[in-house]
Structures are given as structure tokens and as C-alpha cells.
């Protein structure tokens, strides 16, 4: 053991020496000369800056938002749309009706800067739209209209229930329509003017309606399609007391029975 002990010490010494030597070399390399101070140039004009904010950024239609902006180094500040030239710093209430992005542009000797702020406008649900216009009447013509246009009243002389020769063509046309529309059932109303007793007029109106019915039956219209009612003088269409009016009331009137 003694011999080996000496050897170890020697190795250790060599290692320490080597370590020391290396550290010395490093110290010398870490000491360069300081660089020279920079030369100061003429400073360029400062570039403008601008910030634009909307507060609140979301509104309901009809409410207002406030635009706030702050520009520096600017000779001219514009905010679009709508505000135009403004001061460098400020705020302004805006009331857009729909969402919009505001652009603020600051220009100055140093250039130009822009910023944007968006105001979002919530559009409330609109009331339900009016119902679409009714579709135009279907091209199918209603039978009651057709009936009304084609089956016309006939008129009677005072205290008479005979079909007048001049009214026969009307009844013939009525019959033609009724033959073409063989399913149509209808009522003949007999009417009178107000002269004569109300009771007698019930009978006279009945005769008038039946006279019209008999004519139509002779023209080939089935009697079973025809209902007859006398209104006597109870349902005048004209209420003045003159012959014009009386004439209009002495009639057989046809109504469609759906």
C-alpha cells in the first residue's frame, strides 16, 4: 500500500497543475478594449399614432355608443364614416342604425396612422312581416257569382202576375244558364210593391214567383230544383212611395241555393 500511495499523490499534483494552467489562459482572453461611443444623427419627425375605441362595442338599434380616440404627433385627424375632421383627442356619441367600422386616420409630418373600431348594432326582431298579400282570386269562378250575373230578376205590372212579353227573353236566358248548370238549385222570391193589403200581397207574390217557375219549367228546368217563396210587400228593395220604386219592387228574384 505505501508504494501506490505515492503514485496517487503525484497524479493528483499533475492534474491540479494542469487545471491551474488552463484557468490562467482563460483570464487573458476575456479582457478586450471597450467600443467607441456612437455618433448622434438629426432626429426624424415622430410618426403619428392613433387609437380609436368604441364603448360599448355592441349596442341595440336606437342606442348610442361613444367613440373615443387619442392621436399623437398628428396634424390632422379624420374619423370616417360620418365624423370627418376631429380634434386630436376626443369622444363623440354615435348612433349608427346598423353595424359599422369606424376608421380614424391621423396624419402628420411623421406619416400616417390608422385605427379602427367596430360598433355592432343588434337589430331587434322585427314584428312579423305582414301576411303575404292574398293570392289573387283563383281563376275558378264561384257559382253564386255566376248565378247572380246570369239569372236576372223579372218585373210585373201593378196587381199582375203574368210574365210580361218584354221579360220573356230574360227568363229564356235564365233558363239557358240553368240548363247549362244542371246541378244548381235555386229559390224564386215573389215580391210586391206596398200598395194593396199585406195579406193579398202575400198571395200575389206567391203567384208571381210561381209564374216565373212555370215559365222555367216549360223551358225544361226541373221543378224539383226550384223552391218558391212569397215575401209579399215585406222585403222591398226600394222604399220610396213613387212608381219608380214600386216598379222595382214588383219582381221575381232568383237566389242560388248552395
Amino acid at each position: 500500500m505505501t508504494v501506490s500511495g505515492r503514485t496517487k499523490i503525484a497524479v493528483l499534483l499533475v492534474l491540479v497543475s494542469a487545471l491551474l494552467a488552463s484557468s490562467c489562459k482563460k483570464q487573458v482572453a476575456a479582457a478586450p478594449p471597450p467600443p467607441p461611443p456612437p455618433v448622434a444623427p438629426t432626429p426624424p419627425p415622430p410618426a403619428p399614432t392613433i387609437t380609436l375605441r368604441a364603448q360599448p362595442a355592441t349596442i341595440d338599434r336606437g342606442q348610442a355608443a361613444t367613440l373615443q380616440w387619442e392621436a399623437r404627433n398628428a396634424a390632422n385627424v379624420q374619423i370616417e364614416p360620418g365624423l370627418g375632421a376631429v380634434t386630436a383627442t376626443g369622444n363623440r356619441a354615435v348612433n349608427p342604425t346598423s353595424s359599422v367600422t369606424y376608421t380614424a386616420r391621423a396624419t402628420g409630418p411623421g406619416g400616417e396612422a390608422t385605427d379602427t373600431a367596430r360598433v355592432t348594432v343588434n337589430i331587434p326582431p322585427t314584428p312579423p312581416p305582414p301576411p303575404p298579400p292574398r293570392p289573387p282570386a283563383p281563376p275558378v269562378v264561384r257559382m253564386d257569382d255566376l248565378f247572380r250575373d246570369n239569372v236576372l230578376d223579372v218585373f210585373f205590372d201593378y196587381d199582375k202576375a203574368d210574365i210580361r212579353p218584354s221579360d220573356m227573353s230574360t227568363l229564356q236566358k235564365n233558363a239557358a244558364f240553368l240548363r247549362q248548370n244542371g246541378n244548381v238549385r235555386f229559390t224564386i222570391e215573389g215580391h210586391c210593391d206596398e200598395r194593396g193589403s199585406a195579406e193579398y200581397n202575400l198571395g200575389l207574390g206567391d203567384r208571381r214567383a210561381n209564374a216565373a217557375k212555370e215559365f222555367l219549367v216549360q223551358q225544361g228546368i226541373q221543378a224539383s230544383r226550384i223552391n218558391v217563396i212569397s215575401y209579399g210587400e215585406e222585403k222591398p228593395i226600394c222604399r220610396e212611395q213613387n212608381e219608380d220604386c214600386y216598379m222595382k219592387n214588383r219582381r221575381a228574384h232568383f237566389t242560388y241555393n248552395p
Partner: protein
Amino acid sequence: MKRLLIFGLTIVLLICSRGLYARVRPVQQSQIDAGTKNGILGVKIAVPEFQPAATDDKTAALTTLFNQVLWSDLEFSGVLTLVSRSFYPIGKFVNPGDVTVEDWTAPAVDAQFISFGSVRVDGGRFSAEARLWDLKNPQNREIKPPSALYRTEDSEQGARLAAHRFADGIVEAIGGGIKGVARTKIAFVSDRSGSKEIYVMDYDGNDVHALTLYKSITLTPAWSSDGEKIAFTTYRRGTPDIEILSRVDRRPYTFQRAGGTTTTPAWSPDGGKIAFATSRDGSDTEIYVADWNGRNPRRLTVNKAVDISPAWNPKTGNEIAFVSNRDGTPQLYIMDAEGTNVRRIIEDGGSVSNPAWSPDGQRIAFQWQKSRTSNFDIYFHDLATGKNVQLTQDAGDNERPTWSPDGRHLAFESTRRGASNIFSMLANGEGEVRQLTQTGKNTAPAWSGYIDN
């Protein structure tokens, strides 16, 4: 032969009633002499005001009403001449001791009868102690009835009813034995609610009630002779048809429907049958007779013309008057109740409608428009003489005459004051014409038979 027999019987009856009357009261009898316009030879009666038995307001008001109604009933009876109160002795006439006969028979008053008494209102009761005295008969001074205590409820209706009863009793006692009509009623058509409905009112226009509320067209009321039922025409089910309601409780009675225009019902005098017009079997209205429920209909006319508005001879039930335009314009015809022996009554042309046979069967009232430009007026046709007597003139249209059951009065509709209203008058066309309705357009009066209430 039959007619001769009826004529004979009528004469006998007349003689009997006159004889009876003469024995009891030898005074001049008032007779309606509608044909000759001799005027009413009225028995003179003094009617001093009944006195209230207490001084409260209600008694005073109901006494005043009783006095008004009694006066009005007697004045309109057609039998009596009421002596004006300005001629009466001064005083209050309540008890027999208050009436000095000589004061009332003196020339200033010259009354043959006097009615007087008092009114008491208590305990929910209206009572009138009422007397009728024969001033010229000292042996039988007080006439009973009608002298009696009349008790009703303590309302205006009660006061009216008591006055009506007493008045009817007076008229019956001194008017030849024919009952007064103060408790009869008149049915009519009014549009006051917006549609034509049937209404019923007292004979003097009071106490109006709607019988129907159909909101349709309802027409031509006709009374059963007992005053219990009203038949009429209504459109409420479409074509016009006949229905029947109880006047008392509005209970419906069936009348068999058959289609067509079915209208103008008329009760036979015994109440068992209804004559009416219908177009159920053809192309124009014909007269039929059926049981009063509409069963067993039998056609009486066969004619291509309007046949309408049947009216029974209420005395015999053997004849039916009706309107037909078989000769061109509406005219008046009579046939036997079996449909035979048809004869035209008015030969003078024009337009004739709405016959109404007088209760004694002797006259037929009707409306007549003599030319197309003239108004309708009320006439009657005297069957014995064949004469036509005009009762209205120069007063608008006058239509639909209807007889009171005593045959002394007619109600009718008239435009004499504008819109159609119901009026009544004495059947001789003289005296006051009373307006019975005011609201809306009122037409088609039908006077009831006697009603006991």
C-alpha cells in the same frame, strides 16, 4: 130556409132582450146603429170621482188612475153619455148618504144613473167599493151587479183591472145586456224591436207584451174565440207558415206544416177549425179548412187566382168570406163553409181586402181602395141591405178592420198620423178615434173575444 130560420131567431132574441130590458128599466136603450149614422142615444150617467180612503201618495195615485180608466172605459163603451163633471153638485160622494138623488136628476145634471165609491189600498190589495145607482128607480136604487167590492193587487195593473171590471159591469147592466169590452185585448204586428213580431195589448193600448221574439217576419195574428190562443204567420222556418201560441203562457201548439205560402189563419167560432190560405198544392193560394192542429185539411177554392184572407161568419160558422182576384182585382166573396155557393159581395170594383165579419153576422167590415189613386178606407157591407157604409175618410190609409166582441167597436191600422199605428173607433164611425200604439210601425190588429180576468 136556414137563413130565414136564423133571421127569425134573431128577431125573437131581439124582442126578448128588449122586453126584459124594458121591464127592469124603462129608459131609452142605446143601440149601435152603425148603418144609418143616427148617433148614439146614450143613457146619461154621472161618474163623480171615487175618493181615496187614505191620504197616502200611493192610494191617491191609484185612485186617480182608477178614475181615469173608469171614465175612459165608460166614455168609449158606445152605450153611455157621460155627464160632464162641471155640472155635478159640489162634494165628495163616497157613501149612500152622500148622494142626494134630486141633485143628480135636476135639469143641470139630468143623469139617469150614477156611479160612485171609494178606493182603499192596503195589505197588498187594491179595493174599490163601487156602486151603481138607478136614480129614477127608488124601489131598486142600487144595481147589483155591478155594485160590489172590486179587489185586485195594489198596482197600476190592479187599479186598471178593477176599473175595467166595474165598467164592464155597468155597460152590461145598462147597455142592453151586452158585455163591455174593457178587459178584451188586441193582438197586432209591430216592428218596434227591429223585426215584425206579434204583440198583445189591452183594448185601450195599455200593458203591451211581445208574444213572439223570432227576429223573422211574423204577421197576421188571429185569436181563438176563447181568447186563449193566437194563430199567426211566420217566416222563421223559411217559407211562411202558420203557428199557434198560447196567449197566457206562450206555449206552442202544433199546426201541421205542408210547405208553400201558408198564411191568414182564421179560427172557426167554435175554436175547432182554422180556415187559411195556402199554395201547398199548386201555383197560387187557395182557401182551406183544417182541424185547428192543421190536420185533415180540406180545400175549399179551386181557382187560378189569389184566394186569401178567410173570415168566418162568427154568428153561424156556416159561411166564410174571403178575398180573391179571380175577377181581375182583389174583391170580396162569400162561400158556404163547405166551399160551395161562392158569390161576390162588392160589385163596384177597386181593390178590396181584409174582410172582418161582425159578431152578430150582419156586417162585413173591409178595406177598400176605390181607385188606384185613392187611399184605403174602412167600410162595412150590410148583408141585409147590401149597402156599403164608409167609416173613415181623408185620413191616410185605413186598413185591416177588426171587430170588438160586442160589435160596437172596430180597431184598424191607419197612417193618419204618419207611420202606421193601431186605432180604435166606434163601429158607426162617430165619436173619438183613439190611437192605441205609438212606437214603431204597428199593423194588423186583431181584437180578442171576451177574456175573463
